[in-house]
């Protein structure tokens, strides 16, 4: 089961029959397991990792440190929810350390992102402070090196 998830996590486009061959399983069984994993939300979504720069798409993203006041009964969850409901927000994580939430935001321009932080994020009840870090360059994302120039340098034939 874990190996199947491993495979799909690294390449969601593998077909059921390909997976069946690789794991020496029955195709029907693979289909059944995937369906079950989708139903119980172990598999949440199949995503494509896109290098938008290649098509000239300028995007601005920022990591925002957010400090918040925890609330009785719900802790950080209620504030986190008010934040993650915004579609501009790509990810929200509760972190240990000097701030509480790490919020990742994506927008078209720097102005758009700053505007969102100033008007939407920092005004939420319970948010004490925000610190915005704009992303200058992405080297690696989700385990993938963006510009990987390592190639097969082996001799074509060897004993």
């Amino acid at each position, binding site marked *: 089961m874990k190996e199947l998830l491993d495979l799909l996590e690294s390449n969601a486009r593998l077909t059921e029959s*390909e997976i069946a*061959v*690789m*794991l020496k399983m029955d195709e029907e069984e693979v289909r059944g397991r995937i369906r079950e994993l989708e139903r119980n939300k172990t598999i949440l979504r199949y995503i494509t990792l896109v290098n938008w720069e290649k098509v000239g798409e300028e995007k601005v993203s920022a990591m925002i440190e957010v400090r918040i006041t925890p609330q009785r009964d719900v802790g950080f969850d209620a504030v986190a929810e008010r934040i993650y409901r915004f579609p501009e927000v790509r990810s929200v994580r509760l972190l240990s350390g000097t701030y509480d939430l790490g919020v990742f935001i994506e927008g078209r321009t720097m102005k758009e992102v700053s505007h969102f932080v100033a008007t939407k994020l920092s005004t939420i009840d319970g948010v004490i402070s925000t610190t915005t870090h704009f992303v200058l360059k992405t080297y690696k994302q989700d385990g993938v090196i963006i510009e990987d120039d390592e190639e097969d340098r*082996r001799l*074509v*034939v*060897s*004993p």
Partner: protein
Amino acid sequence: MSKKAGWYERINPVVRGIPPSGIRKFFDMVTEMKGVISLGVGEPDFVTPWHIREGCIYSLEKGYTMYTSNQGLLELREEIVRDLDISYSVTYDARREILITVGVSEGLDLAIRALVSPGDEVLIPEPSYVSYAPTTTLAGGVPVTMPTTVENDFRLTAEIVEKRITPRTKILLLCYPNNPTGAVLRRRDMLEIAEVVRHHDLIVISDEIYDKLTYVGSHTCFPSIPGMQDRTVLLNGFSKAYAMTGWRIGYAAANPYFIEAMNKIHQYGILCAPITAQMAALEALKNGRDGMVRMVQQYNRRRHMVMQSFKEMGLHCFEPGGAFYAFPDIIPTGLAAEEFAERLLREEKVAVIPGNAFGPSGEGFVRCSYAASMEDLGEAFRRMTSFVRRSGVRPKTVVNL
């Protein structure tokens, strides 16, 4: 070639008598071509894991650029001893029973040279890696090959060994998991072979470089067979399991007498294995296990895919239990191994190695390495299928019961 000057005749006749490697001829052909997908590579397609490379860089920054003791860094020997103990419950003394070598290749050469006197016979399973017989010949020994067959899953049996034993037999060479067949020995096979070894008082050289790449059952380290450790030279290294072929780093484990004798040759011929490679090997043993397991898992998936492809192609291929090679039977195509490999290369631009490069009993087979990406494997097998179709092979109807 200025044969006229008589230089050729002045080369040591033993060296002259060694035939050129069957692979080299093929190599020249492949390098001239473009767009070739190579399944002819005897090394991992993974680059050495980053933490190992980084560990080596750090050691260079720290100035580790000197000789080590002839036997190699004690810390590395201790890690090797620990690894052997954890993996196979065999116990060695890091100070007296381990020697760090420049790859298994050097370890093999040392073991043979330290043990073989002129005329001694060395039993070598076949098909097998190309260097066992020449190394024996160069040491003045007599290689005696033991053909194994596909009917027996290319396993070596006690019976095959027994048949070749003469009063001059001194060494039995074992090489499992096997290159080029991917065959593995079962523990039961080893126990029976050990019986013959004991009876005829043989020494065993066991090349277990593919030990970690075992997919069916678990690998039995030959020295772990009762009574065998003392009479076995165990050879292993880091090339395959940790994707470190170019580092040229391996080791030998044996009784102190053998190690001392091998070390004598090693100290004059090599002095010591490169310290940078030793530092990298140390890092591999200390922190490389998880990465290694992940690589093995990937090989296994490819192995399944390769087996399925041959089945669909209509070529019989016995299921390899180890290494990263498949050894399909190509007789139904009506082509000899070299012809098959040459035409497949010219017509479909897929490189495989003719089986007879690994000894005459490899005729009728080709070695396909699955140390290649899934994408390359998929494309290579598509091309190979159309090649095999053209030669008239049809897949047998698969009946699902």
